[in-house]
């Protein structure tokens, strides 16, 4: 399609748009389909962005932390904890090492045992929170030294469960983007159907226009502009409703976890504004292809 043709198709003129009769059900179908698809796209986008944030957070927060667990007879816990802290402070790559207080350990267990837990009544191991610096430490070497000097210490660098969590979040993000692609494809298919129906219903109009000297680009342009505008309006209504729905979702909280963090954040609120433009582009391409095909068939 040449630049001039594209300009004619996109802008045309008011007279040109009148030559194609208004078509009832195809107009409603296009508006509804683009509105519904834009609504779904908003949620798919929100899911994708939230999953991305979660994956990034888990990856960065957990990657630089580890937990040292001291499981020892009650009278040796304090000594082994002190020994472990000494070793950790001497280990290159360890930025910070801190033994959790009884209160902090009780808080960790509160979701399962409830508040007011008396740790003295339970054989709970002592936990040490380890934070590594930029260079990181040699986990294998640290484990060897701990096994020699602090027999009750077990180092957990979170790798075992961090990796599947980050993978799960990344999968969710990919799923969101795939959903958006599928939504775009479904929208293109529906608009193609509507455009084909409108073109078929107007076969006689097309014949008359050709007889009086209309170029195919002129005829196609009249249909393309109409469907593109409808898709733009439908998508705009769809994202307005979708953003309203996202606003009504509960705000992000630690208690709610992932399910309460599904909204947009900061500049992320601008992403849905692209949906009507994408919807209109999809409608433009789908109607243009349908019109060219139909006009060739009618030749």
């Amino acid at each position, binding site marked *: 399609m040449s630049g001039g043709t594209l300009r004619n198709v996109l802008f045309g*003129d008011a*007279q*040109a748009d*009148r*030559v194609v*009769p*208004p078509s009832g059900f195809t107009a409603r179908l296009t508006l509804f389909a683009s509105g519904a698809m834009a609504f779904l796209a908003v949620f798919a986008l929100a899911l994708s962005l939230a999953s991305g944030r979660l994956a990034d957070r888990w990856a960065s927060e957990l990657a630089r932390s580890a937990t040292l667990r001291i499981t020892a007879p009650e009278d040796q816990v304090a000594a082994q904890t002190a020994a472990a802290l000494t070793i950790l402070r001497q280990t290159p790559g360890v930025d910070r090492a801190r033994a959790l207080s009884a209160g902090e350990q009780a808080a960790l267990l509160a979701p399962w045992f409830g508040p007011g837990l008396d740790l003295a009544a339970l054989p709970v191991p002592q936990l040490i929170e380890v934070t590594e610096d930029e260079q990181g430490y040699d986990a294998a070497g640290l484990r060897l030294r701990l096994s020699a000097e602090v027999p009750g210490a077990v180092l957990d660098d979170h790798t075992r469960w961090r990796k599947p969590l980050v993978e799960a979040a990344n999968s969710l993000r990919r799923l969101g983007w795939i959903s958006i692609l599928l939504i775009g494809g479904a929208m293109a298919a529906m608009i193609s159907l509507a455009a084909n129906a409108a073109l078929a219903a107007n076969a*006689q*109009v097309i*014949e*008359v*226009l*050709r*007889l*009086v*000297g*209309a*170029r*195919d*680009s*002129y005829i196609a342009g009249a249909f393309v502009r109409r469907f593109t505008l409808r898709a733009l309006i439908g998508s705009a209504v769809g994202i307005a409703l979708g953003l309203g729905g996202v606003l009504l979702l509960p705000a992000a909280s630690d208690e709610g976890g992932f399910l309460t963090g599904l909204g947009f954040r900061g500049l992320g609120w601008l992403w849905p504004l692209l949906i009507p433009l994408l919807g209109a582009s999809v409608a433009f391409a789908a109607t243009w292809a349908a019109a060219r095909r139909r*006009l060739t068939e009618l*030749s």
Partner: protein
Amino acid sequence: MIELDDVGYSYGGGELLSNVSVKLAPGSFHFLTGPSGAGKTTLLKLCYGALTPTSGAVRAFDADMRGFDRDQMAMLRRRIGVVHQDCRFLDHLPLADNIALPLIVSGRDMAQESANLRELMTWVGLTERADARPPELSGGERQRAALARAVILSPDVVLADEPTGNVDWEMSMRLLTLLVELNKMGKTVLIASHDLALIRAAKSQVQARVLRIANRRLQLAGADL
């Protein structure tokens, strides 16, 4: 201007036209006659590129139409005004817009063309019916409107397919007068008609050549016409 050179046209396994050769010279006036189904409409359609000959060549304005793409065909149709027997209007548009349709699709500035449109509607006597929708028009009004639409771009050639087929004698004469006026303005006119009385009446107003299709071939009509 338009030339058919040894043209043949077959449809559905049967040959409808065979070895047709004719030249429509600039400013000439032709009638095309013959019985119903003889191929008059087919020959007209070959002249404006709505059909492609199965043999031979059609040349319009010195160009072989076999090499035309769809854009070139659209340009050709702006130089050939066609009046169809069934008129073919867009029913959702008022009459004035239907007549102006060739101007609209060729991207003319309608504000500048409004005087031209008014003058043309006056010429065919339809000024009062400018806002009427095509289904509200009588047969004669539809034919006059179709003629106005055919000539609004001031084409070099006017082809009319049974323009008096659905109107009474008085209206037939009025339409004939309009077509003769166009010819006197220098337009080439070809009218397909089986109405011999109309052809005889025309010969008293204009020097017309009468062609007849018989047995798939085109020939000059005899002295009876």
